[in-house]
């Protein structure tokens, strides 16, 4: 971490000697806080999820008065069935692990986008819009040029990052130059991006020949992200190179934030914009820079959906990844490795949840509830402390700042 001659904008961590964990991750945490609390949080969230499954089983509830034994057995069956498929669908086979990776990849990339914003004191609600624009850029390069795969994939990814960066830099520029709040402008940019996608997918530039609905031309095979397990020749194992891109991006963000002067300045702006300004940093360009990088990361997430999974563009290609990314960044405490870990967790929940939805009558929405609960338990260590009587950090962390940065 940069210190010494640098201006006095200190990190909000304790001044104790750095542990190996701290060295590796850049956050000062005990093992308890780093491992035990998240594990207990996941466990608690699953327990609450089980209770929700039980009390929404209305057939069993009706039996509860007359035949409590059968009713409880039925409830247990529902819970067991749901969690069994949740596990099998996310880790039970090669295909399941592959699905977890496929789901996790864009979540990690978009989560990094939101996290880097938080680090700089900016609330990037606009990851969804940046995802859409980035995806459309990557899509266009994907079907319009004809080059070998080793050029096509990088070019398409680069285009996606560029599209996202442009879409992210606009709110950054507006904030820096005019003070327009990024929460408003990024929400508006999301809506605009949504309409642009609708328009372009029906325009002659994008629309597949002979289609009336908004579906784009398919991308060239050379632009598809190569399959990781292609040698197995199994079409159901979809894991692709995107996860490698996501991990590289996470390392890149880590390096940028914690090992470079620019990253130091990003964090300084987030920690105390006035301090940063008086220390001679150009707050204007730092804000634009942060938002451009955040946008680029979200753009990569959108490109991953197009180049890795769908191979063509449809109006819903981004799903709700940009919004899930906010929860995810919070869970990962806005740290790149935290984002990777929570991205994998959310990816596993989503992959398993889809399997659960197919095989039981429990809908995928249960996953959202579990995700929310996990974050609550982690964000409020006092709750975990009260339930399990373990020692945790005394104070809840503060990751975000108010409107007035």
């Amino acid at each position, binding site marked *: 971490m940069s210190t010494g001659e640098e201006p006095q904008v200190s990190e909000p961590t304790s001044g104790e000697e750095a542990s190996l964990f701290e060295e590796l991750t850049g956050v000062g945490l005990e093992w308890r806080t780093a491992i035990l609390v998240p594990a207990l949080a996941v466990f608690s969230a699953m327990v609450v999820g089980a209770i929700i499954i039980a009390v929404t089983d209305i057939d069993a509830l009706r039996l509860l008065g007359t035949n409590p034994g059968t009713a409880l057995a039925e409830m247990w069956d529902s819970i067991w069935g749901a969690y069994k498929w949740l596990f099998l669908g996310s880790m039970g086979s090669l295909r399941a692990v592959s699905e977890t990776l496929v789901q996790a990849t864009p979540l990690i990339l978009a989560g990094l986008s939101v996290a880097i914003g938080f680090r700089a004191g900016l609330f990037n609600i606009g990851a969804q819009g940046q995802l859409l624009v980035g995806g459309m850029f990557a899509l266009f390069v994907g079907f319009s040029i004809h080059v070998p795969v080793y050029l096509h994939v990088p070019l398409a990814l680069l285009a996606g990052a560029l599209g996202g960066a442009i879409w992210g830099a606009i709110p950054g520029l507006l904030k820096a130059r005019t003070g327009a709040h990024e929460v408003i402008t990024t929400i508006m940019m999301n809506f605009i991006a949504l*309409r642009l996608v609708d328009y372009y997918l029906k325009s002659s530039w994008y629309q597949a020949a002979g289609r009336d609905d908004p579906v784009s031309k398919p991308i060239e095979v050379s632009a598809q992200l190569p399959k990781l397990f292609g040698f197995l020749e199994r079409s159901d194992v979809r894991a692709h190179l995107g996860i490698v891109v996501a991990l590289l991006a996470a390392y890149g963000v880590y390096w940028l934030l914690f090992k470079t002067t620019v990253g130091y300045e990003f964090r300084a702006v987030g920690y105390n914009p006035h301090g940063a300004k008086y220390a001679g940093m150009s707050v204007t360009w730092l804000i634009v820079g942060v938002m451009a990088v955040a946008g680029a990361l979200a753009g990569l997430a959108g490109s991953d959906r197009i180049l890795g999974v769908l191979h063509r563009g449809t109006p819903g290609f981004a799903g709700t990844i940009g919004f899930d990314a906010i929860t995810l960044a919070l869970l990962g405490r806005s740290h790149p490795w935290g984002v990777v870990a929570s991205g994998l967790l959310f990816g596993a929940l989503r992959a398993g949840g889809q399997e659960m939805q197919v095989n039981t009558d429990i809908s995928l929405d249960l996953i959202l509830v579990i995700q*929310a609960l996990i974050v609550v338990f982690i964000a409020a260590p006092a709750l975990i402390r009260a339930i399990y009587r373990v020692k945790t950090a005394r104070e809840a962390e503060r990751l975000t700042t*108010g409107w007035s940065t």
Partner: protein
Amino acid sequence: MTAPATVVRSPAEIRRARRLGITYIVLAAFVLWVFGMGSLGEGSATFKLVRPTDRFKDFPDLVLPAAGIAFVIAAALAAFGGIQLTRGFKKLSNVVLAVGFILFIFAFLAWAAAGSSFSLVGMLDESVKRSVPIAMGALAGVMCERVAVINIAIEGMLLGGAFVAAIVGSQFGSFWALVGATMVGVVLAWVLAVLAVRYRVDQIIVGVVINVFVLGLTSFISQRILNQNPHLNNATLLRPIKIPLLGDIPFFGQILFQQNIFVFAMFILVAVMTYSLFHTKWGLRSRAVGEHPKAADTLGVNVYRYRYLNVMMGGAIAGFGGAFYIQGSVGRFDENMTAGKGFVGLAAMIFGRWHPVGAMAAALVFGFADSIQGKLAILKVPIPSEFLLMAPYLATIIVVAGVVGRARPPAADGQPYVKE
């Protein structure tokens, strides 16, 4: 006459004033070229001001030459720009901006409706209705942020209110539906307050989590229970109430005085909140808690109690606003039916500078933007519909960036208070 002859303005204010002036001129040129020249020879635009069912249904239509009206409006906007650049409007600046905005929209409508007829009353009526949940969300936000608690959870509160209103309304009728929706808002707000005020968890985290939780739980229950039991999701709508005499006024009566209770509640809430926040002891103390909690505490104001109570009142407003989707609009719950309107409400709150009247005005603009999409499809405007749909969002960005500028939230916004 003690006021100084020249008011000292900061460079930023001067820049903003100049930018506003230039914006007027650009808009004037746009109106002149696109709307004015574009509707030359297109004939007149006919605006219907009453409905066939109204008492004064023979009230004449407003018939205007489309090109002529565009030229007049372009001239007015150019004049605004000129005055803005030379001596400024001083205190009237915001009023003039609002007038300029309305004139521009009017020029647009005249151009779109040139040669045909168009129900102005219908569109404005729709605008007011669509602005209700946005305004309720914005007012809830004002309530919380005036005591320095950031409430991102408005979206979740609206959705939770709608969900409970649908189920309770199907079983026990509209009155209890409104009570239930309000209560669920209060409960969610209480959770926010406990975590944010007592446990001092980051307020934005709590808000995001409540949103995700409510979205997940309502969608889950909707799929698991409501889909198989449609009788649990079939609430009755609240009919519009016509206020005697006032409701018969042509045009305005239709828009303002023949509405369901949600619209009236919105107007009443804005009035009550404005009065209470700025003219009562409670309001002064609330604002003190938001601006400088330590000072308020020193003077004997119970900071925690004010934060708890106001946040819960905000929750009540948002929950009640959520019921609009059921009792005031469609009668049945759909997954994620609020579709981000809570966030638009948040934007309206910032846009309206944390003031109830400003928040409602901003909500009306968004409501108008929402309602315009359905109507313009009928008029065959030579612009792809997607671009029309994005226009209000674009306009918001331009207004927020160019005119509103650096809005100032309550000074302690988002910061937990630790009593020493």
